[in-house]
């Protein structure tokens, strides 16, 4: 070799901060994502800590005309009461618990199933992948709302059942996304190097494929939560939601529809707006996370 001292290689430009710090900085610089995060934290506080401060009776049904259908601004009932005498503000908190719990857990469940299914199908490839993905195609072809309605007609909808059922109809999209990613990751040199040295398939999937799809997983989970909250509302609107005395924002809104012509807007607007705000907030976060994890479109 004739070289004496090669010129120093130019250092990579983004090397100072740790990956977590840089990711957090990217996320923080996305205003919408920060607004979304703040809203979600406030909503969780409102729904779960709120009832400790604003104590209301959400069980006892009343037929006392002095209590039912009070408009907003009534002393003791800032948002009024409904036809059963429940305080709307307190009811919003209770309904929010249902919507958020189902949304979060169903979104999580869907992502979990989808990730495993997609990672395995994409990694194995060939006929196994073909069959697994046709199952996903069949699932996507079946309309989710329709299925939920049928299942609600067959079984009595409870919160755990809703979580499982919504999770079971929502895992298909993440499965496709993760599969596509697994297919590219498995041809990366680090996976080939592991296979060449005799590493097992389990190790390849567990140590390389799944950890490297984590960005897609998190982004998708956020969107799944948003969609699950909407789905809960739709099911309630179609009259097949959780059974009383449990309720969710969609059910509150639906009950209020009958009173629209009477001008009882406080029955529909608060739950309606809360759904919009919550779903928007999760979408904002998902968008911010996508910017944060997505290398595509970044200046290099």
């Amino acid at each position, binding site marked *: 070799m004739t070289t004496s001292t090669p*010129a120093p290689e130019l250092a990579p430009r983004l090397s100072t901060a740790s990956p977590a710090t840089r990711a957090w900085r990217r996320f923080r610089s996305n205003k919408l994502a920060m607004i979304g995060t703040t809203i979600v934290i406030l909503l969780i506080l409102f729904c779960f800590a709120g009832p400790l401060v604003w104590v209301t009776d959400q069980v006892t049904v009343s037929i006392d005309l002095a209590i039912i259908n009070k408009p907003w601004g009534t002393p003791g009932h800032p948002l009024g009461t409904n036809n059963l005498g429940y305080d709307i503000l307190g009811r919003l908190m209770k309904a929010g618990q249902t919507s958020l719990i189902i949304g979060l857990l169903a979104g999580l469940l869907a992502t979990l199933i989808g990730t495993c299914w997609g990672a395995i199908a994409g990694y194995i490839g060939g006929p196994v992948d073909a069959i697994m993905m046709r199952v996903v195609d069949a699932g996507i072809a079946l309309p989710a709302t329709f299925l939920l309605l049928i299942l609600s007609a067959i079984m009595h909808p409870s919160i755990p059942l809703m979580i499982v059922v919504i999770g079971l109809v929502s895992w298909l999209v993440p499965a496709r996304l993760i599969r596509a990613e697994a297919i590219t990751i498995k041809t990366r040199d680090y996976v080939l190097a592991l296979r060449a*040295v005799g590493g097992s398939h389990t190790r390849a999937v567990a140590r390389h494929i799944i950890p490297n799809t984590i960005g897609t997983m998190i982004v998708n989970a956020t969107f799944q939560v948003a969609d699950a909250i909407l789905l809960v509302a739709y099911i309630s609107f179609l009259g097949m939601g959780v059974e009383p005395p449990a309720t969710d924002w969609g059910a509150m809104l639906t009950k209020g529809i009958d009173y629209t012509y009477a001008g009882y807007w406080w029955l529909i607007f608060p739950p309606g707006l809360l759904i919009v705000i919550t779903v928007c907030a999760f979408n904002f976060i998902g968008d911010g996370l996508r910017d944060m994890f997505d290398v595509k479109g970044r200046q290099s």
Partner: protein
Amino acid sequence: MTATAPTTGVQPVLTVEHLNVQFVTDEGTYPAVNDSSFEIRPGEVLALVGESGSGKSVTSLAILGLLPGTARVTGRITLAGESLLDAGEARMNVIRGASVSMLFQEPMTALNPTMTVGAQVMEVLTNHRICSKAEAAKRAVELLGRVGIPDPERRAKGYPHELSGGQRQRVVIAIALACEPKLIVADEPTTALDVTVQAEILDLLRKLARESATAFLLITHNMGVVADIADHVAVMYNGDIVESGPMKQVLLEPAADYSQRLIAAIPKMPAAHWDDIVTAAQEGTVTVPAVPASLPADDVRPALQFDNASIDYVRGGRAFRAAHNITLTIPEKEIVGLVGESGSGKSTLGRCALGLIPAAEGTVTVLGHPVHARSLLSAEDKAVRRQIGVIFQDPGSSLDPRMTIAQCIEEPLLVHSPEGLSGRQARQARVAELLDAVELPSHYAMRYPHELSGGQRQRVGLARAIVLNPRVLIADEPTSALDVSVQAHVLDALRSLQAAYGFACLFISHDLAVVNEMSHRVAVMWQGHLVEVGETASLMVRPQHPYTIRLLAAVPSPDPREQARRREARRKLATLDDMATLADGAPPA
């Protein structure tokens, strides 16, 4: 510093004065080009050379006004008396394509896949209202013919995917030429092409530069390309032009410290016996050498042995034969270079040796044990795999981005838990030992791959490849993605590791010069066939097979004198029908 051009009294076409470019990102402002000045006269080729990150491509995009919105540009760029930085977007649209046009690095993606080739050439003519639509269609066909596209009328109606990479680059050249611009900016126009195709494109560019008054600004990292067609050279490093002058002066007697080191780092090749080669070819006595079935029986034990191996490759549901009846021996403690262009099957051969692709026929053995590409590996298979290490090309994907450097290096130890290295502390000690062997500081163990430069990552890849102390290393283009000075460093590391650990190595590369410096023996592959095997020293100066001859003649030498000889030899060889028939061959399936 200003590029010193001979004062011929001709006004320069392009003058760049005190150009500064900065990128504003959410993490700060980065300078890309600092106070650069140069000029180009009509008919001249100015090569702007430098390694990645030197600012040469940014300079080219600044001239065309195609930098992204995050760039801040100051200084003066004057094209034929007009200031380009002051021209508005509308005016730039008139200038781009008409007065200055551009060639890009990646011909495979430079054309719109859903638009006919002819329409894409016509677009530049109709944009500038050079002629009517009907006239433009005719001109487009003429232009395609001029840049050497066979059957231009039919090709004009076809789509880009029907053309090879070299032909697509010719289409892009036709687009650039269409309005007879004063300046063509060519950003690494041949980097993505095979050497033999590169040589043809360089011939075309040289012809165009000689025929017209069009000036060329050639952006490249390849000194061989510079030696082939440039008149002047400006060397960039870290945003600065560190040296400029006439091509021969800069390449042969570099003045700046950086240029000297850069040129010294370029792998060298011996001067081939071109006169003998050309004479033999002209007399029709070129022989196709028989590829030796095995090495002369010098009682060497083969470390890796391909025995009549054929390999099928499946792509898009279609299987085709990527390697035919390969018989090749890699003796213990020896480096054998395997060269070939893309699609020659050289990487397929490497992957077969790694057990990633099965051999359809024949066998591959490591130290006498067959390598199987089974999905589930038996204990014997795993024992064989322990003896093979691998390093791949792409530093971007060779290490798992979610693992620390230590985790990357120790992974093979976790797979095999070899005796004495199964404990946590033993593994850590081994990682530290190897980081030291590849000259990386030990605290890098806790870092993540993205914090390392490309060259550092390839050295980590080397450390991982030999962590199990294998007897065979497969190196698949280990330095092809690196800059020359970094490449020199990684090759040094590989060489010293080989000396210290004594493994055999199959060194796969498209770069004859690198193979020349690295290997004891060279094997040449072409379209799935092994066409020639020989001692490096003799093969590089007196190749036997017509394809090897053509390949060698196509590699541009960074030495302008040797390059002149090669070009002359290429010209003579090209006139021989037999050589042309053989070397053109059928495109790889």
